[in-house]
């Protein structure tokens, strides 16, 4: 589904990604771990097309197309979703309205019929149930006055409604207490499917206790330096990133 080859990217003139390669197949959950400043968030932002992230070399192929050529909104319509580390507040814009506008914009781009209010409301009710989120969230403005946990849960809820093929979670676990973490993890698990892939960017292996990944990669100094299964995360937890031989946090 996703094939990243030798990806180099700069932010404000500084090279952050230095030849990153990664393959992700449908149905897989990949965890990307690594020390601060390794380029984890840069990877998420480059994949979703954020401005200010300049790709200087390498390719990203997504379902056979050159992902880097697409605008952020076109990537979203193609099924790429980024759960932000710091979700943004949009004062006065109703959460439900925002989500419906997003879903319908994506459907329109894909040539699908837009959902009317009734159809959309039905979909939202179903997803709320699955995510175990109270509908009070729907009536508020997008992330306005939300607690840290509510913002993260809202991201997962958006993901549930938008049903992406490739979901990138950028430190969705950071700043969450254990109950909120479990709730977010449960939401992610509910969305796991053979057609959908996840890229979970995280600092700690704590999240991986609840969402068990198929692969764990260590990102250090702009490249993947080690890959393995769940046990790699545990090893990291024990020895830290410094314990890695190959060019860890320089």
């Amino acid at each position: 589904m996703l094939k990243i080859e030798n990806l180099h990217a700069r932010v404000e003139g500084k090279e952050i990604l230095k030849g990153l390669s990664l393959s992700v197949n449908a149905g897989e959950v990949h965890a990307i771990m690594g020390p601060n400043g390794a380029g984890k968030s840069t990877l998420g932002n480059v994949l979703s097309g954020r401005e200010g992230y300049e790709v200087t070399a390498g390719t990203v192929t997504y379902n056979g197309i050159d992902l880097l050529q697409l605008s952020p909104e076109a990537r979203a319509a193609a099924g790429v979703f980024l759960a932000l580390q710091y979700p943004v507040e949009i004062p006065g814009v109703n959460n439900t309205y925002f989500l419906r506008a997003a879903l319908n914009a994506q459907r329109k781009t894909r040539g699908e019929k837009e959902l009317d209010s009734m159809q959309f409301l039905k979909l939202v009710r179903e997803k709320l149930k699955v995510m175990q989120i109270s509908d009070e969230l729907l009536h508020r403005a997008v992330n306005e006055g939300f607690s840290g946990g509510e913002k993260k849960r809202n991201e997962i809820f958006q993901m549930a409604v938008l049903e992406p093929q490739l979901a990138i979670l950028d430190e969705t676990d950071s700043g969450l207490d254990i109950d909120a973490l479990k709730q977010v993890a449960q939401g992610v698990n509910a969305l796991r499917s053979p057609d959908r892939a996840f890229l979970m960017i995280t600092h700690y292996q704590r999240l991986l206790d609840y969402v068990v990944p198929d692969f764990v990669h260590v990102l250090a100094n702009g490249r993947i330096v080690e890959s393995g299964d769940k046990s790699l995360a545990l090893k990291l937890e024990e020895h830290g990133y410094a314990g890695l031989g190959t060019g860890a946090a320089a």
Partner: protein
Amino acid sequence: MNEIMNNQSSTAAVLRDNAQVAEVLGRSYSAGFVTQIEMTGLPPGLDEGTIRALSAVKREPEWMTEWRLEAYRHWLTMPKPDWAKLNIDPIDYQAISYYAAPKKQPKSLDEVDPALLETYEKLGVPLHERAALAGVAVDAVFDSVSVGTTFRKQLADAGVLFCSMSEAIREYPEIVQKYLGSVVPTGDNFFAALNSAVFSDGSFVFIPRGVRCPMELSTYFRINAQNTGQFERTLIVAEEGAHVSYLEGCTAPKRDENQLHAAVVELVALEGAQIKYSTVQNWYPGDENGVGGIYNFVTKRGDCRGDDSKICWTQVETGSAITWKYPSVVLRGDRSVGEFYSVALTHHFQQADTGTKMIHLGKDTKSKIVSKGISAGKSSNSYRGLVKMEKGAERARNYTQCDSLLIGKQCGAHTFPYMEVKNPTAIVEHEATTSKISDEQMFYCRSRGIGEEDAVSMIVDGFCKQVFRELPMEFAVEAKKLLEVSLEGAVG
């Protein structure tokens, strides 16, 4: 008082310069067409003869003619106003025609020229009662005259008088004489004096004691003829305990010359009466190079003459090359309430200097001001407001909130709050914020699949929510659409 206390300002953070939001041309103004219709009118120029001729064409009684002439003589003595924060070319008052009207004057809606009906149809204001918006009575003013008023019979049955000002002067002279100029005197300011001398038409509303107007009333103003000024005069009187909600909409064709629109609106609320006055102003704003557009110089004032009365102004201002207006409330009656909710959007080279005045005279009077300014392109947007607490305004309160949103780097937003407090028990609160549409907000919307222009519209709509909530339902939708159109090309 709770109402005032509970209002929390939106905490808009000041964000860094927006790289994403750049200036691109290409605004579309859908109301810019011209109606081909046979017109009659007065040649350009202004002197006492013009005023007598205008008064004669309108078959006005002698007192009206004299009233106009007195205003004209006063106007001649007045200095031209000092242009606040506006850049403006001098206006040649002799180059303007003060009266233009369709040649055929209909006696009823059935006789209205089809070209006119089509014009209003195209603007989304059908005048046939069958097609008209349910529950909304419309008075349509085309250049200098009213061309039709809908639902008159239903309103008359409820005791409500709703007709053109010209008609009111002929049919209800006692009411007009009693109230006309009682809120905005003929010599109030330069444009009010000019308007008093040459006003051609406008709407007249009278709600008798204890009556709640059974439907929304609205006037749709259309400037069509070239080199014509529009000087309308609106008078709304709500007697004791009466309630009315009134809305005006405005459009004009695209022309390269600036055209002058100098209106006067007077509202009178007697004891326990409530008047809600909403405006959706979309006069032609000029093109992307600042050529053409309407000069919108308007005096609007409400008088809470009786105790426990309430006047609420809501305005959405997206059009005009220059807007200069300060809908105000004189809080004369004890416990009277004045409110002002405003969204003013400027783009390209538009200039807006708008705000309100709340003059507190009575005890326990309350006022609330919520102003949302949005600037894009190279435009300039100023809020200018006066809150005055006079000696007798015991325990009076004011809450003011001014928020500005900037789109791009070449526009400006200014806030000029004036406060005069002569009573120590009065409380005045003022909050102001300035924010930009941030890269983060734009990326967030786009990463969810929403395109750039839709994202900007959505963010702006959210910013204006507090004001849109105050508009009658049908018009809130219209106002939102208008903002979308007005912002076309604001991002690239």
